[in-house]
């Protein structure tokens, strides 16, 4: 056949080949966006989404609570159908008794409320719906659409879940980010977050989530024109859980109601999690879709009635204190709201106004809530350590832009199309945990804003010589004064002695650890924070920051949760009972330090890769944290960003000396890791091993 064509065919083939080669990879691919158009969900669209979801829930006979948020976590509507469950059970269904982290925390809180003489303080289904919606919105971008099902796959003890001997999920611990006690994530209502009455959605910026990020299917992102505009969360069964068995195809009511709700705002098929491979494993997005050969939906979303026709009929809007309220007022519930457009200052995220951190690419920064024209975290000098060792403003800026440079030049792992550049948030903190600089690539997922800061602070905290002492000084007023009977000082409300974690680590690793100035990356911290050590080796004992596996779950992870459990409990009681006292904007009850008087882990600890301590001539002076892409990419951006920034500065700033890094430690014969940079990290290049010898 080929012969017959002769010369003409070959010429034609050559021309066709050239054409294919030149057009095969369009440069305008969305994974590489450098500017996000100001798209947002209107209140009417929020209504349409809720109505579509309600129709499906009704058709399935599963009345549900439904929440819609915008990309930065502002709650645009919460709707509870008549007959929908109100009480929320939190369980991984592994028969872990109440009193272990958040497992069945509702029973603990209910009992506590009785003791305290207040109404039931247990969590409700609206919180689950909000957490799921926030998760869908926060984990996604125009290059990747992740759902709560995706989250479930990447936070468990193995990746994939239940795959014997596979290391833990790559985003192990991310469920405890966007915490209600965060000093960084904003609160929606001025009454609970300083004063900014001018803004109806509260102070602009990424909002917190009442339960952190969710791993319970039923939360998905919402898109317009290929860009994330928000998230949708559904809770119909009243059980806040995870999906442990991922080898089957679930027919999940929550998820299918969300699929119906999102109709018309669906994630582009090509960027969905199931087309994104991490270590060769594709991620789960939704198990069943309305475009499947057998449409699993029980209703036709296009035929959904107007929102006005169901509001007050099939159910109604419900107020949620601070999240979806008028000031502090939840009754009557507010009307549905417009979302804020990401990239517009009203969202809190907008382009770098002065260009000071856009040296190597168009950075997006968080705008100052008190003056939206300004960068909230314009690079500044550190508040410590004393003696002229603190980072200068120029040093903060140089480290930050060098990290962003690595991102702009790097190859993303979790974005489509292939060879999109890395999209992350970079945070730089001083030795007290104060933010010195923060900026992001244009389309980095929102969750990484908070998580990058968590990582910077986590690496910093555990590298301090007083880390063990600070843990021992944990002092929760919830545990020691509110509880009846009170817990001893040092324990959290569930009776876990926080300082004990350091003691266990010292026994496990070496007696001096967390007092000897070992430089801990968050990757290193993560390896001793897994329910098996070495990570993923089922049957081995747990790492010192974790819990015995029979008690471990993503709702009971050990130190990371135990540090903030009291804050979460306070918040849940605050939401349910209308208690006057909200948890402070300062997570953990560790000692308050530095000029801001915050705890060193004021937005919570985060034990997965992407955070490093910063040194000047051997003295610990701060931390850098990266989040938003694959963990090896996060690692590389932080690692090379600091290294290159330090080299450029020539002021002695840089990484820890080899001799004090955590990869000098080999507890139980398994050496820890400090950093793991990705294979062929730069799009189009041949370069490998870019972090070698650094």
């Amino acid at each position: 056949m080929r012969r017959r064509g002769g010369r003409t065919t070959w010429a034609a083939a050559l021309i066709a080949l050239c054409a294919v080669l030149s057009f095969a990879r369009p440069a305008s691919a969305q994974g590489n966006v450098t500017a996000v158009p100001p798209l947002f969900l209107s209140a009417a669209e929020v209504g349409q989404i809720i109505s579509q979801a309600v129709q499906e829930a009704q058709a399935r006979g599963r009345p549900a609570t439904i929440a819609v948020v915008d990309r930065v976590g502002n709650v645009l509507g919460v709707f509870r159908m008549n007959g929908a469950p109100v009480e929320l059970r939190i369980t991984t269904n592994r028969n872990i008794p109440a009193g272990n982290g958040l497992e069945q925390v509702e029973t603990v809180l209910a009992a506590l409320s009785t003791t305290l003489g207040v109404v039931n303080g247990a969590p409700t289904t609206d919180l689950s719906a909000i957490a799921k919606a926030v998760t869908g919105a926060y984990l996604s971008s125009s290059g990747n659409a992740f759902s709560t099902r995706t989250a479930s796959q990447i936070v468990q003890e193995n990746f994939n879940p239940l795959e014997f001997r596979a290391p833990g999920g790559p985003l192990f611990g991310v469920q405890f980010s966007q915490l209600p006690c965060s000093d960084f994530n904003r609160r929606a209502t001025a009454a609970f977050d300083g004063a900014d009455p001018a803004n109806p959605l509260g102070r602009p910026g990424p909002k917190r989530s009442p339960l952190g990020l969710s791993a319970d299917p039923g939360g998905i992102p919402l898109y317009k024109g290929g860009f994330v505009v928000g998230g949708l969360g559904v809770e119909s069964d009243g059980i806040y859980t995870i999906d442990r068995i991922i080898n089957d195809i679930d027919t999940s009511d929550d998820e299918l109601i969300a699929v119906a709700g999102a109709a018309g705002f669906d994630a582009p098929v090509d960027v969905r999690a199931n087309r994104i491979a991490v270590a060769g494993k594709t991620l789960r997005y939704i198990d069943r879709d309305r475009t499947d050969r057998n449409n699993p939906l029980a209703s036709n979303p296009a035929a959904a009635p107007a929102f006005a026709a169901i509001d007050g009929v099939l159910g109604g809007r419900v107020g949620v204190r601070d999240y979806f309220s008028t000031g502090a007022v939840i009754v009557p519930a507010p009307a549905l709201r417009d979302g804020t457009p990401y990239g517009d200052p009203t969202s809190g995220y907008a382009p770098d106004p002065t260009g000071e951190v856009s040296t190597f690419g168009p950075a997006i920064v968080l705008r100052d809530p008190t003056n939206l024209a300004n960068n909230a975290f314009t690079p500044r000098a550190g508040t410590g350590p004393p003696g002229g060792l603190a980072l200068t403003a120029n040093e903060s800026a140089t480290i930050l832009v060098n990290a962003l440079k690595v991102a702009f030049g790097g190859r993303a792992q979790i974005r489509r199309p292939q060879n999109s550049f890395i999209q992350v948030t970079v945070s730089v903190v001083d030795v007290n945990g104060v933010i010195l600089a923060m900026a992001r690539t244009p389309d980095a997922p929102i969750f990484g804003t908070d998580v990058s800061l968590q990582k910077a602070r986590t690496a910093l905290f555990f590298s301090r010589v007083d880390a063990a002492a600070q843990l021992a000084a944990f002092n929760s007023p919830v545990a020691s004064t509110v509880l009846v009977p009170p817990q001893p000082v040092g324990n959290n409300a569930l009776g876990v002695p926080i300082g004990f974690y350091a003691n266990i680590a010292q026994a496990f690793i070496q007696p001096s650890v967390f007092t000897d100035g070992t430089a801990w990356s968050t990757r290193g911290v993560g390896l001793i924070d897994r329910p098996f050590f070495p990570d993923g080796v089922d049957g081995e004992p747990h790492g010192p920051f974790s819990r015995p596996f029979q008690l471990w779950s993503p709702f009971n992870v050990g130190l990371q949760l135990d540090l903030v459990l009291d804050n979460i409990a306070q918040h849940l009681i605050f939401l349910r009972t209308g208690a006057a006292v909200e948890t402070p904007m300062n997570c953990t009850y560790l000692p308050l330090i530095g000029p801001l008087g915050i705890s060193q882990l004021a937005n919570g600890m985060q034990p997965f890769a992407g955070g490093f301590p910063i040194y000047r001539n051997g003295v610990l002076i701060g931390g850098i944290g990266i989040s938003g892409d694959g963990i090896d990419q996060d690692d590389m951006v932080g690692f090379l960003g600091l290294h290159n920034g330090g080299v450029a500065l020539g002021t002695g700033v840089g990484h820890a000396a080899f001799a004090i890094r955590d990869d000098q430690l080999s507890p139980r014969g398994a050496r820890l890791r400090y950093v793991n940079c990705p294979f062929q990290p730069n799009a189009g290049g041949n370069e490998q091993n870019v972090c070698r010898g650094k």
Partner: protein
Amino acid sequence: MKLRLLFLLLATAAFLPGLAAPAHAGKEQINQAANDGEEALLSDSEAQRRAAPGRPARDARRPTPTDNPGAVPPAPPNLPREFIPVPDRWRLADAIGVVTSTIDPYKQNMLKGDRPIFGKDWFVNLSLISDTVIEPRRVPTPVPFASSQFNIANDQFSRSNQLLINENLIGSFSLIKGNTAFKPPDFELRISPVFNYNRLEVDEVGLTDANPAKGKVRNDSHLGIAELFVDYHIHNVSERYDFESIRLGVQPFNADFRGFLFQDSQLGARLFGNRFNNKIQYNVAWFRRLDKDTNSGINDITRRVRDDDIFIANVFLQDLFTLGYTPQFTVIHNRNRENDRFFYDDNDFLQRPNSFGDERLRKYNVTYIGWNGDGHFGRVNLTHSVYGAIGKDYNSNFTGREADIRAFFAAFEPSIDFDWIRVRGSFLYASGDEDPLDDTEGGFSAIFENPQFAGADTSYWIRQGIPFIGGGGVALTQRNGVLAELRSSKEHGQSNFNNPGIALIGGGADFDILPELRFSTNVNYLMFADTSNLEFLRNQGEISNRIGWDISGAATYRPFNNQNIVFRLSGAMLLADEGFKRLYSTEDEDQSIFYSVLGNLILTY
């Protein structure tokens, strides 16, 4: 009645141990050490067969058949074995005073089937083979997620030196009833146990075992079964002893001349025979696969028998188009139903399903239709294989949907002899999947390949298994395999038709320098057929399809001009091109050339 009894006997022998043992909890990885025993065993038994006089394939009209030096010879498995050309020679020999011995295989030997062991026509044949492999090599090595051997291991790629030591001790016992002269035996029972010891030393942890705390050295041993069958001669169909036989049990089989699709020793039932003065030979077979021992690659009859069936029908037509050329036409159906549970190997690595993509359990049906040939056209020798694969994958790992399998394969090896030099060309193409996200799987995947082609185990690419670092718990290419199949392993894994395919163009020459010494060389250039699957799994765009040059040489020394002592030393290196460099590196720049050295000593009694 007799047949039924035999079947029962066999069933007891072969099936019972498998059923009685509980599901083995063993597991494995992309494993460098696997399969040495298997290969050596086949190689030796083939060599024995080749040495047998009176082999019908050595048609007087043909020159010396294609002989691929330094490699395992092909296994035309349907031919009768060990003819002894002189009837009653033991009595004759007695008369002329031949000395018998039970030690020396070259004297008349009761243990070697030279004289009946009892009765008039019951013979015993014993053999013992020691096959020793010492193999220093460099293979791309990942730093594991959870640990590392060295501090300051900051990247994906670790140091890549490895050393494999593998020893197979293979015994073979045959009980044969028959005349052993021109007439095929009436009955044979053969048992070939193998004892294997293997040791793998690598530079990095997490490779010899999924648990990085287990270190970087693994010692393992295994006692397994290479052959366990009864062969019953049903009847002769002509005066020239054209015959029909049935063979039941664990038996070697090669689906084509060069082991491209299925060459293994597996549990099965095979009816075979010939017609028209051996001009036509045929096989009808059913194999149900045994699982392997992970690190030795030898059949492990203590594991549950795999839910994987292979149905084979083939026919060889000698001199079909021209004298001296034997085409073989074959239809092979592989039905895999291993979708009931996860399977881990002895080293705790997930093997089934393949550890990548959606990692959901899967089953598949695939039918291979093949035209293979071996022979010569004038002075030019030619061996070739052409296969089409058609089937259905019930859960494509990249889409989660059903997919059609549509793949093909072609390999040609022309060669020509100039006195003591043979010059060879090697051309091979296995189709690659063009789009991981569509509903067609276009990558060619074999059942159990063991190719004797393009240098075979002398070549780097064919000899070494290379883990697909960063793309899942699969290997880019298997040990003793030429395809880039992206499967967990040859020994335990399922076929995978979502793969990049492979193209090989090469040439080589064999030099018979001395009667005792042969030197062979090979130069191959390798390319992927289509890298889109690799790009998808690593989420890495623009991976070039150029793998690189594979350059190798081997010396085979037979000090006594026989197969009793064979020493082989070979070396190969891969000069990586663009595509390979985008996939792999090594921590130490001084180790940038990946090589493989193979020292092999085979002693046979």
